[in-house]
């Protein structure tokens, strides 16, 4: 894992040397500030504004866009510039390369997410009472969701040498991932009557499918624990497992690239 550390260092430092990163930072911080301001004037109460800024619809939009934008370059860019050949012939394993890069993007997003903490700090400073456990829990949850989505984005990035295409693929994947439970329910509404004869049979099928979708439901897992300030280890494991799977798939996809040439 020393290799992963070395790759992480370079990647993280490299992020801050790319003008692109600064543009992303500027846009995100600016929009986030404006949104927070908007939530504040709309709800008129401090905790409502915080809640909106941290976990509202805009939050999930960021969560789809930002990891995709950061992850799109991780492999695709290196593949295009040829440095991937350098990295993949260096004495580090593919998994170390993948982990290092993933960590770098994740660290960046964690720092970016921490900017929201400053809102809570500010509210505290002007005499408000932010719900600190919920704020911190939300930040941890943000990092975990970002971890998963960066991993998905990175997998998409190994499929192509065009970063933008990778970003698009990644966004589509993340949106579908978030909508899995919803889409499944919708689809079931149409086909369920044909699947079971009796009400009990239908109910058991519904329960089985819900059991599956619940295990992919990032949104639900996030809302149930982190948002209310509960650090449930099973929720952490939920995100980490999926992330690990996608990191593994990314490493395998890199290896598949070698075979394709």
């Amino acid at each position, binding site marked *: 894992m020393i290799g992963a550390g070395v790759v992480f260092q*370079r990647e993280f430092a490299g992020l801050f040397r*790319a003008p692109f990163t600064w543009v992303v930072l500027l846009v995100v911080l600016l929009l986030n500030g404006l949104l927070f301001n908007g939530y504040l004037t709309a709800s008129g109460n401090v905790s409502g504004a915080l809640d909106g800024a941290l976990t509202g619809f805009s939050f999930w939009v960021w969560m789809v866009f930002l990891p995709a934008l950061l992850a799109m370059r991780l492999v695709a860019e290196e593949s295009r510039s*040829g440095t*991937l050949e350098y990295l993949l*012939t*260096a*004495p580090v394993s593919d998994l170390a390369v993948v982990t290092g890069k993933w960590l770098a993007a994740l660290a960046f997003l964690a720092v970016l997410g921490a900017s929201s903490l400053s809102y809570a700090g500010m509210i505290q400073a002007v005499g408000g009472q932010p719900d600190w456990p919920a704020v911190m829990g939300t930040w941890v949850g943000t990092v975990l969701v970002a971890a998963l989505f960066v991993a998905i984005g990175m997998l998409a990035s190994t499929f192509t040498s065009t970063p933008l295409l990778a970003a698009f693929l990644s966004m589509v994947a993340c949106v579908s991932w978030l909508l899995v439970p919803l889409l499944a329910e919708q689809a079931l509404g149409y086909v369920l009557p044909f699947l079971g004869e009796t009400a009990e049979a239908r109910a058991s099928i519904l329960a089985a499918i819900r059991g599956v979708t619940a295990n992919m439901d990032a949104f639900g897992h996030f809302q149930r624990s982190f948002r209310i300030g509960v650090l449930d280890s099973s929720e952490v494991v939920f995100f980490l497992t999926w992330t690990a799977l996608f990191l593994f798939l990314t490493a395998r996809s890199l290896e598949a690239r*070698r075979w394709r040439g």
Partner: protein
Amino acid sequence: MIEVQDLTRRFGPLIAVDGLSFRVERGEVVGFLGPNGAGKTTTMRILSGYLPATSAGTVAVAGHDVLRDSMAVRRSIGYLPESVPLYPELRVEEMMRFQGKLHRLERRALRTRIDEVLERVGVLDRSRQLVGTLSRGLKQRVGLAVALLPDPEVLILDEPTSGLDPIQRREVRRLVAELSDQHTVLLSSHILAEIETMAPRVVILHEGRKVADGDQSSIIESLSGGAAGHVSLEAAAAAEPDRMAELIGSLPGVARVEVGERVGIHHSFSVFGEGDLREDVGALAMTQGWALRELTWKRPSLEELFTRLVIGTLDAEEEPVPRSVAEPAVEVSSAPDLPLAGGELPLGAPGTSAQKTIYSLNPFDRGASRDLSKPVSVDDPSPAEDDPESGA
């Protein structure tokens, strides 16, 4: 150091490397030579662990199997791909430090080692410059420095001189020559002149297959069908070319004489035999009073053989190409018939039928005594000329 046996790599239906086998011993400098698409880069990528082989008997570098023990191989090679992949946003020394960390060099040693290597490739004064702002030649050198940093046993350099100007090329050549006493070097090029100067041993690839392997003179010998070289003679004389050829053929050691084209008043001959026969042929010319224009020991260059080889193979596979195209090695080809169409003597440049006045070149005849301010016409009774009318 490098052992490759029966290496095959396919990309879909395309066979990039086809049953390639070769060995490189410790301390050798071996050049991979071949036209674009011959499989040089693919082979190097397989050796460096970037690509897996489709099938292979053995592919081992520095005693480690490339597929099974990839990390050990990667630690013991310095690989410089053709594109010279460097991170443009890093400074030269940062790039070097990154490479050092990847190879787990010790921190303290790394600093001195970086300076040492940068000094060696001559970019020490650029160590603070961003890689992205370097010129092509400097980038190439930094790439070489990156490959050299961990002091690898084996260096694999893919087209190390491509895209460089002649001076930069010469410097890379000098560097490679310096490296050869400490490292085993495998390099590739499609430029023969490069390979000829850098690598004593050459492996020629064509369409994924090895077509020749050995030091240059042995490759030349084997590819040119045994004849290592010949004496090329151009001389003007009163005698008929056949008679001249006969005389030359009577010399000891001469195996075969080919009468070549006639250029102006000169006949050309290619004399094949044991070794360099220039002295014997020269002595003969002296006694016979032939006016020599050229007496050269000609060895077919790798370039000629290579072109012949490549085009020759194409020739065999595709529609027949006229022989003249397939044989660019003009010196070796024979054209015994004099181009005396219409009985006119083609003087001057070959191919022009216009009559020109030329100097008599026979020093024993009258060259010394004639008026040098006036050109002598060939129409004058010229002993250096055989009569076209009598020949026709």
